């Protein structure tokens, strides 16, 4: 190893390469926005869209007709139902736009118009039917006791935050690495670098290291925000959370390396990125549970790296799982990291 003096005031190549990449990143305001600000914007938006404490209100439209007044009265007495009058021509639009979830036509017995594929409409049907039958004089066999469980830790926002962190680790890891490499290739910088005595593995390792240095804030910003603003409880230890994030970042960094290993245009890399990331955004349970997909698809979904990362993050953050408890997920992630890394090294185009 040569000393700093022998290097004319420069540090070791690996340090200089990592610093160069870091500097390029922090001097790109857009990159900062997408990595740190965007997740917060998204969290706030979702917290507003899915309030956890307030009971949901059912939006019901009542069509014109002889018994309309009676229906309105009956629904008005029930809790959690908002009623509005609707005319025939606007019915379709109101249903489509979710302004009403269900329309009651005041026949006897009543007629319900709704889309059975929409969850809120199905809920509205049950609530409305119950209210109308009660108003019609149905005798209640019992009055059930209710114990609401809207405690911190089991709300949608709590469930969502680990998914958001996992998604950030995936997209930032893949984008920063693949984009940086493709840009360097387009500018003939890769070729210039290999014309110097730089060691190739040091260049690639520096890309991953620089990536890991942005990882800390990237995980902490949404997590701390959720804890401070939504009072989200964090059950797992910081060390285990960091370990899972680290493995995830290395995995998706390696995948980014693979995607960027031969591409030489931004269009091609963007297309390739979307092809790889979009299915995982949908299937891996970022916004809604992947249990919603049919059983036949589950083996595929469970094999995806983002599913493994998010499952591990949720287990650790929400349930306080230990490192050993998420061993399967980490093993799968590691496999998704090691194989692409070596394939990338083999097929990498330096020109």
């Amino acid at each position, binding site marked *: 190893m040569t000393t700093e003096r022998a290097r004319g*005031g420069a540090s070791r190549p690996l340090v200089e390469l990592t610093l160069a990449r870091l500097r390029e990143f922090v001097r790109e305001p857009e990159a900062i926005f997408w990595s740190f600000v965007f997740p917060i914007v998204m969290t706030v938006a979702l917290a507003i869209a899915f309030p956890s404490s307030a009971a949901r209100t059912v939006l019901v439209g009542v069509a014109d007709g002889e018994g309309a007044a009676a229906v309105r009265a009956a629904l008005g007495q029930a809790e959690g139902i908002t009623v509005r009058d609707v005319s025939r021509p606007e019915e379709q639009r109101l249903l489509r736009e979710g302004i009403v979830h269900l329309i009651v036509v005041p026949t006897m017995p009543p007629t319900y118009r709704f889309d059975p594929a929409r969850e809120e409409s199905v809920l509205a049907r049950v609530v409305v039917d119950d209210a109308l039958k009660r108003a019609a004089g149905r005798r209640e066999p019992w009055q059930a006791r209710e114990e609401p469980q809207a405690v911190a830790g089991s709300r949608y926002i709590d469930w969502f935050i680990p998914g958001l962190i996992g998604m950030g680790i995936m997209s930032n890891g893949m984008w920063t690495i693949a984009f940086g490499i493709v840009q360097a290739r387009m500018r003939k910088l890769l070729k210039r670098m290999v014309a110097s005595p730089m060691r190739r593995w040091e260049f690639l390792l520096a890309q991953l290291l620089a990536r890991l240095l942005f990882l800390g804030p990237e995980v902490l910003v949404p997590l701390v925000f959720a804890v401070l603003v939504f009072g989200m409880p964090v059950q797992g230890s910081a060390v285990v959370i960091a370990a899972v994030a680290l493995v995830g970042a290395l995995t998706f960094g390696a995948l980014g390396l693979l995607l960027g290993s031969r591409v030489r245009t931004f269009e091609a890399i963007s297309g390739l990125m979307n092809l790889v990331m979009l299915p995982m955004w949908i299937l891996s349970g970022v916004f809604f549970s992947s249990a919603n997909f049919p059983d036949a698809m589950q083996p595929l979904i469970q094999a995806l790296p983002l599913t493994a990362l998010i499952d591990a993050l949720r287990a650790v953050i929400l349930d306080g799982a230990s490192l050993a408890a998420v061993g399967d997920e980490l093993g799968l992630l590691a496999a998704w990291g090691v194989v692409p890394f070596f394939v990338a090294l083999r097929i990498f185009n330096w020109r």
Partner: protein
Amino acid sequence: MADLAVRCDDLRKRYGNVVAVDGLSLHVRRGECFGLLGPNGAGKTTTIEILEGLLAPDEGEVEVLGLRWRRDERELRQRLGIQLQETQLPEKLTVHETLRLFRSFYHGGRSVDDLLHAIELGVKRDSRVGKLSGGQKQRLSLACALAGDPDLLFLDEPTTGLDPQSRRQLWHLLDRFRAEGGTILLTTHYMDEAEFLCDRVAVIDQGQVLAQGAPKELIASLGAPKVVVHEGTLEDVFMSLTGRHLRDD
């Protein structure tokens, strides 16, 4: 022949059906500035990239500083300075940071601050590369090539696209490198550049060496000046060899 900086014999390189280099041989002596002169598409860049160890020839032998690429790549890379034709250095880094990066790859050589002054960019030390003029960028790129105090400098069209003043400035930097005992191999399609800088040139077209020698000799070999209104130039040499102009424009 230990006094040769570059020796290549009978190089050939084909891209599909296109023959880029067609049996080309060059001997560059230590301490001289040697120019590959020819129009665009003559095979200059392919040739210099083979000599730089960035491309493998289909046929032919290459020896640089008495070493072989296959065997001695690590040592060669430490002892060469290379400037490519179209490299764009990272725009977000400063001049100083860029030099530190390239300097870090070499075991020996001048300090980063020395390099900065050598290319007369001391005042631009903390400017972003993206803010530099074309001439300043080209000088920075030259400094990156000089970072390891090379014995041999490869330059691919070092002044293409620069204004006359920036070109002169760069020529003087190269002259200084020569004066300190360095060897230069450069490609150019500017006759005046070849005449100013080079001890010897090889005129290249269609992947072959058409003529070789000192610029003055080549011009003299034309015999009586063909045109009376101006002195003979390398442009005339090229025209008499190929019947075409050196540059398309």
